């Protein structure tokens, strides 16, 4: 089925998220929609899927104008979507999730057996091996994504939209997904692939449309270079490398040994992890999302409850201490999810800049807030960290992702640090801010602080790291130099230790 978007415009108040976007996807082609975070890609797809109503423009399927009042209409017209955040009910079974919305059965009574049959049928066609009665919450994310695909296919979708589908996958799983997408294309489906990852685009796309600030800024061929694609996406030349010198070690030392973290459900999420980070070097923790990296960083800060083993900073034990005490020992922390864990959205920039020092000098004296000091501090931090805002009294929730992250960074780096832990420091951040944040991380390293950076983006990990530690299912697969080949790292992310395939352990 041929999909055409004509002049789609979507506004939120004064903000134009989509500005007269035109897009055509032919049957049997994979059309890539490439753009930065916040470029308006997802808004466009939500319009296509009937979740938002466009202010202007029209959607055509096989040259017929469509009017979608909701996702139900879009699906009925043959559009299927694999959502970035899976749209699956965790406590439902696979079959229940697949049948939801178009349930088989008569008189309103469910026919679960025919739903099971349908799941088995489609999963056999693609070699998925899915148990229709498994509960979603018990399935790994990669499998959950397949349920999403089955959901779309069970409705005979001819147009399939994949919204940032690779964020949660290992390189190997990503390859498998690409194969599935090609298989679907070859069977005649029109595929829209939304991403900001250049490598994937060049690998799988038949055509590329680049979106920036809500506008289509151009088309590109899959043979274009990374640099060309990046500059088209960002709108200027992009510094694609991180410049850093050889590490100059200081006396600082983080030593983690035999660390184990057990989550609320009783699963061992960090399993016998040991490593050292010296002052002046960056250790990057790589791995697919959900392999214990989050819990590892949280354990470093004292946020996990069930922790055993030992974490010492400059010889001082940190395990078992409260978050307050750990912060006071000079640990800086950039959480993975800044809107939930890093910032209080309704608080002003100035208030957020004192968030983790709200219990004593210099921001608090004898129980009372020192407002004048706070505001002076905030003004200088905003200037120094290039936070673009109307003023320090702006609620931080109104800033863009990049500016929010700069506020977090300013708050943490303007303390006297002895250890800096940054989890996914550039997730959901524009390219300009990414460059700034990377420079700040390298500057912190050069100041002699041990730095731990968690990143699921292999490119970021290799660019920032002096050494890379790969985690899989809570364990350390290996600690290798940052020059290790990408393929080796990819296999390590799937749990295969470096020695077994000729890699080099450090």
């Amino acid at each position, binding site marked *: 089925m041929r999909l055409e978007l004509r002049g789609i415009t979507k506004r*939120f*108040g*004064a*903000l134009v*998220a989509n500005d007269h976007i035109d897009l055509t996807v032919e049957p049997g082609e994979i059309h890539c929609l490439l753009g930065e975070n*916040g470029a308006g*890609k997802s*808004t466009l797809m939500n319009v296509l899927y009937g979740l938002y109503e466009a202010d202007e423009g029209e959607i055509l399927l096989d040259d017929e104008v469509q009017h979608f009042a909701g996702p139900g209409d879009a699906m009925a017209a043959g559009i299927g979507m694999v959502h970035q*955040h899976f749209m699956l009910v965790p406590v439902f079974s696979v079959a229940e999730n697949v049948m939801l919305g178009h349930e088989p059965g008569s008189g309103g009574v469910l026919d679960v057996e025919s739903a099971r049959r349908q799941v088995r049928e489609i999963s056999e066609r693609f070699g998925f091996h899915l148990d229709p009665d498994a509960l979603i919450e018990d399935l790994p994310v990669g499998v959950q994504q397949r349920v999403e695909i089955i959901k779309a296919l069970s409705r005979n979708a001819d147009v399939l939209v994949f919204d940032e589908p690779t964020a949660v996958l290992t390189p190997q799983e990503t390859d498998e997904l690409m194969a599935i997408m090609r298989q679907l294309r070859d069977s005649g489906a029109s595929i829209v692939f939304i991403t900001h*990852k*250049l490598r994937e685009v060049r690998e799988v796309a038949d055509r590329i449309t680049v979106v920036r*600030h809500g506008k289509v800024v151009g088309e590109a061929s899959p043979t274009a270079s*990374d*640099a060309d694609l*990046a500059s088209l996406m960002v*709108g*200027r*030349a992009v*510094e*694609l*490398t991180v410049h850093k010198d050889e590490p100059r070690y200081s006396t600082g030392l983080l030593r983690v040994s035999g660390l184990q973290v057990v989550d609320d459900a009783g699963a061992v999420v960090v399993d016998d992890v040991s490593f050292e980070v010296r002052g002046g070097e960056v250790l990057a923790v790589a791995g697919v999302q959900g392999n214990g990296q989050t819990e590892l960083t949280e354990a470093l*800060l004292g*946020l996990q409850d069930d922790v055993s083993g030992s974490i010492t900073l400059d010889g001082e034990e940190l395990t078992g201490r*409260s*978050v*307050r005490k*750990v*912060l006071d020992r000079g640990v800086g*922390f950039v*959480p993975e999810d800044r*809107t*939930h*864990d890093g*910032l*209080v*959205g*309704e*608080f002003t920039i100035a*208030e957020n800049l*004192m*968030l*983790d020092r*709200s*219990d004593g000098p210099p*921001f*608090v004296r004898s129980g*009372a*807030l020192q407002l004048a000091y706070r505001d002076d501090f905030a003004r200088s931090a905003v200037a120094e960290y290039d936070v*673009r*805002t*109307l003023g320090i009294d702006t609620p931080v*929730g*109104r*800033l*863009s*992702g990049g500016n929010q992250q700069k506020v977090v960074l300013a708050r943490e780096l303007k303390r006297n640090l002895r250890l800096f832990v940054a989890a996914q420091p*550039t997730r959901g951040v524009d390219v300009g801010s990414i460059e700034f944040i990377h420079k700040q991380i390298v500057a912190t390293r050069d100041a002699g602080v041990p730095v731990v950076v968690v990143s699921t983006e292999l*490119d*970021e990990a290799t*660019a920032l790291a002096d050494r890379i530690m790969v985690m899989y299912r809570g364990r350390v697969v290996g600690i290798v130099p940052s020059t290790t080949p990408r393929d080796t790292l990819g296999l390590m992310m799937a749990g295969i230790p470096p020695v077994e395939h000729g890699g080099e352990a450090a």
Partner: protein
Amino acid sequence: MSHQSQEPTPEPGPEKEPGLSEELEQEVARESGAPAGLDAGEDTADRLAHALQQTMSHPWTVAAGAILLAVLVGSVMIAFTDERVTSAAGYFFARPGDLFTALGDSIGGAYSALFRGAVFNPRADGFAAQIRPLTETFNYATPLIAAGLGVALAFRAGLLNIGGQGQMLIAASAAGWVGFGVTGLPFGVHTLLAVAAGIAGGAVWAGIAGLLKARTGAHEVIVTIMLNWIAFYLVAYLLATPGLLQAPGSSNPKAPPTPASAQLPGLLGERYNLHWGFVLALAAVVFVWWLLNRSSQGFAFRAVGENPRAARVAGIDVPWTTVKVMLVAGGLVGIAGASQVLGQVTTGFGGDIDAGIGFDAITVALLGGSNPWGVLAAGILFGAFKAGGTAMQASEGVPNDIVLVVQSLIVLFIAAPPLVRAIFRLPDPDRRRTPREARKARKEAA
């Protein structure tokens, strides 16, 4: 994002960095209700907090509109149940004038009685007597303000304290028990001790809810509702049991009178009922304002209320803060309980000593936008309703329950600003910035 290519292509176009002005425009745009970070999926927890936020804060125009609407509905109820009106309506086509006269008499009579009972009574002798209703209003407002602060403070920390009733009952019992149970203390000391007991009683009862929330994650709404009923039956038992709270020699479930040494003394002399509890409530307003806006503890309360996860990452002990919030909130409600026993009902209290103030406090906190000064104003308004409602019932025979109706309608209307705006055609503040203004702001910043 890739870091591999070694030769960045020079950019020919004029567009360089994502410009400052552009980001500011986005910031302004976000102010007008656009989702923050266009591609970011907003979490439902945030939405919940946001919905609560919206319910809590509202422009005064909406509040005024809500009050007006609620009073209108009240008028209709008064008119339709007034026999003069219904009988005049029976012969409406014969003499339509009668209906309007009857309507005017009925509604006008009721609301002028309300005014005479709440603010100023021109029919009384002398200014001192004429102004007496206003002091009654302050008197009724006293527990409303204190308890309203207790609810508002908890709101600000993200907790819905539905447990005002139970906290007041326990506080009143504690204050009452110290009042008549402890003897031989000098005036002043005895009062202070009784007030302190009330504060402690309220704090403990609310603290149970805080502790359960902190330790087990039990939802404070369910817990406080259950604690209300437990307190209700507990106090009923205490009041019906000789040797505990029951007045000696009595078989009624009623406590002995509060001795003079423990009473809150009159504020304006014998002529008025207004007592020092009002001053206590005013002091509580100032205290809560300072706590929330100027103290590090209040900063922690608000941080936990807005985003407990971020608060935890920032080293704030969230469970302990929850307990502290509930202790302070319960203490504030405790002031209301103590003021009831030591100032309002000094002849011996029964199981209804809370007088529905636990619920009223929720409406006061909502109308007051969870802000201490707003709570003060809302408390005085509802105090006036209560004082006036009593007068209305006495002189016009309109049941006092109308006040409950008006009060709950006010809260409903306030909670749904779009409804009020639609009715009064008020502008939507979320849309107050036009693109033109956004450009202006941009220019100023550049």
